[in-house]
């Protein structure tokens, strides 16, 4: 089989979740032949990402570059048409993308254009057509087999295919870079338009790939007091997360929400403060290596998944932690 990985790039490099998709593609059995990486966008950043990818990442043989203003923004309509076009030319057995908001938005649309069922949010690959994905907020794992025609379309959960520094650094034979011929690309570009995207003041590590995550729940009581969580995160070099309740209450922005319908994280260390532990929240963090919970309610469900629990008032515990924890190295 041959696999197409639909990748996202930023600042001249492949985004980390897309590297996980690449890793998943390389781990497909009977996939010795080839993995191609599709990059699209416009401007120098695109070509920088392409040449950077071609020379620094192993396990794929070809970079396909689609250079057009149509792909400057992540709109589903032109992107789905592009993947459809590339699939018609390449006849891939698999198409894989990360379960990022981009992959979730675009890949099912691609699958519909190709008249196949996609398998989304894959956490494990059993064989070339058999995959494991969580259902019911991770309270059950479903193993599904794709029995339809090619291509088999997947989105993968990047926390289940972690990218190590080694897999990124090891040099390989340089992959070839080729341009996608867009002369027959005729998407009606007027149906959807990009208007704007909020920008985040990017302090601290990315939530999806941070080694340590500090999360606050509604018990933080206000946006002002939520700063305690941010202070602790800073001290630990950690990313900040939040429960749905804390986001709904307006303490922090939506993109910090962890859970079934928010971000999925699996850091080395997860510290939850004032988090009750609803199943919808656990769905987003239950694969963390070490979980610490601090809550004044000894019966909070979060303690059932915590490796270390501390029953106490977070407004006393966090300042004490800030005082006693060592500075991050």
């Amino acid at each position, binding site marked *: 089989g041959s696999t197409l990985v639909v990748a996202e790039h930023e600042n001249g490099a492949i985004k980390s979740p897309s590297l996980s998709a690449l890793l998943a593609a390389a781990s497909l059995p009977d996939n010795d032949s080839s993995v191609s990486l599709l990059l699209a966008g416009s401007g120098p950043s695109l070509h920088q990402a392409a040449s950077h990818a071609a020379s620094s990442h192993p396990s794929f043989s070809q970079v396909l570059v689609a250079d057009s203003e149509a792909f400057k923004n992540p709109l589903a309509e032109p992107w789905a048409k592009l993947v459809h076009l590339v699939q018609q030319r390449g006849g891939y057995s698999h198409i894989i993308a990360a379960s990022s*908001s981009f992959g979730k938005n675009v890949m099912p649309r691609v699958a519909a254009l190709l008249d196949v069922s996609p398998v989304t949010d894959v956490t494990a690959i059993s064989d070339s057509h058999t995959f494991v994905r969580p259902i019911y907020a991770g309270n059950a794992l479903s*193993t599904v087999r794709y029995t339809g025609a090619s291509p088999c379309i997947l989105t993968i959960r990047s926390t289940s295919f972690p990218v190590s520094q080694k897999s990124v650094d090891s040099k390989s034979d340089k992959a070839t870079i080729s341009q996608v011929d867009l002369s027959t690309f005729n998407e009606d570009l007027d149906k959807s338009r990009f208007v704007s995207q909020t920008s985040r003041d990017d302090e601290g590590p990315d939530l999806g790939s941070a080694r340590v995550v500090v999360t606050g729940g509604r018990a933080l009581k206000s946006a002002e007091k939520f700063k305690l969580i941010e202070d602790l995160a800073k001290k630990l070099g950690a990313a900040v997360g939040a429960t749905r309740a804390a986001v709904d209450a307006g303490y922090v922005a939506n993109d910090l929400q962890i859970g079934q319908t928010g971000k999925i994280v699996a850091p080395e260390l997860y510290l939850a403060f004032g988090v009750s532990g609803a199943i919808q929240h656990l769905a987003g963090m239950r694969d963390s290596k070490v979980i610490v919970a601090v809550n004044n309610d000894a019966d909070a469900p979060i303690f059932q998944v915590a490796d270390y629990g501390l029953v106490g008032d977070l407004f006393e515990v966090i300042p004490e932690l800030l005082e006693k924890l060592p500075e991050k190295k």
Partner: protein
Amino acid sequence: MKIMVAIKRVVDYAVKIRVKPDKTGVVTQNVKMSMNPFCEIALEEALRIREAGLASEVVAVSMGPSQCVDTLRTGLAMGADRGIHVEAGDLLYPLYVAKILKKLVEIEKPGLLILGKQAIDDDCNQAGQMVAGLLNWPQGTFASKVVLDKEKQVATVDREVDDGIETISLNLPAVITTDLRLNQPRYATLPNIMKAKKKPIKKFTPEELSVEIKPDLEIVEVTEPPKRKSGVIVSSVDELIDKLKHEANVI
């Protein structure tokens, strides 16, 4: 303009899921079923658009076994004008949901099709994007705000994405899928529950809509996730720091 809303009957969000011992699925017998929470938000949004005078009618659609009619009645009690029930088996993959919706769209000709972004049972997050692709309509997924311009026939949609909020604008007709913070769905009042009993529900089968159901996926098994081994309760911040340093080796 007419708005079509797809609603799914799922295991209630508060039910603790149990996997069947024979690994064929999860226990759904004698379990409380409800409207998927994201579908409630989709229906609420449609009702608000109608109440703002920007739409004339809200049609709720549900697919699956006969009990889906109960879910449709809930939708009608919330305020949908009429319902459509497509009688189908329990397990209908999103590709077929999308194909059936496409046929219903061709019959009803709505200007807007609103769905929840995902169902909390299979967590697929696919149907909206797929029906948009089949119809060649633009899509605004994971919506946290929708503003309609009736004059220009344009919907401006705020989307919850990984890096924050993205705003896009779509020509109608379009597909929108709803995220959690779009609105707070209303409850059905008793008088409206009574009224809903008289509202019409039309029935279709996939065959009548010329949709052939031939799944290209099969479930091999459904299992319980690995259990985390039970942890310890520490008594002080000092003990916690000591454990994290010397036992877990994470700080």
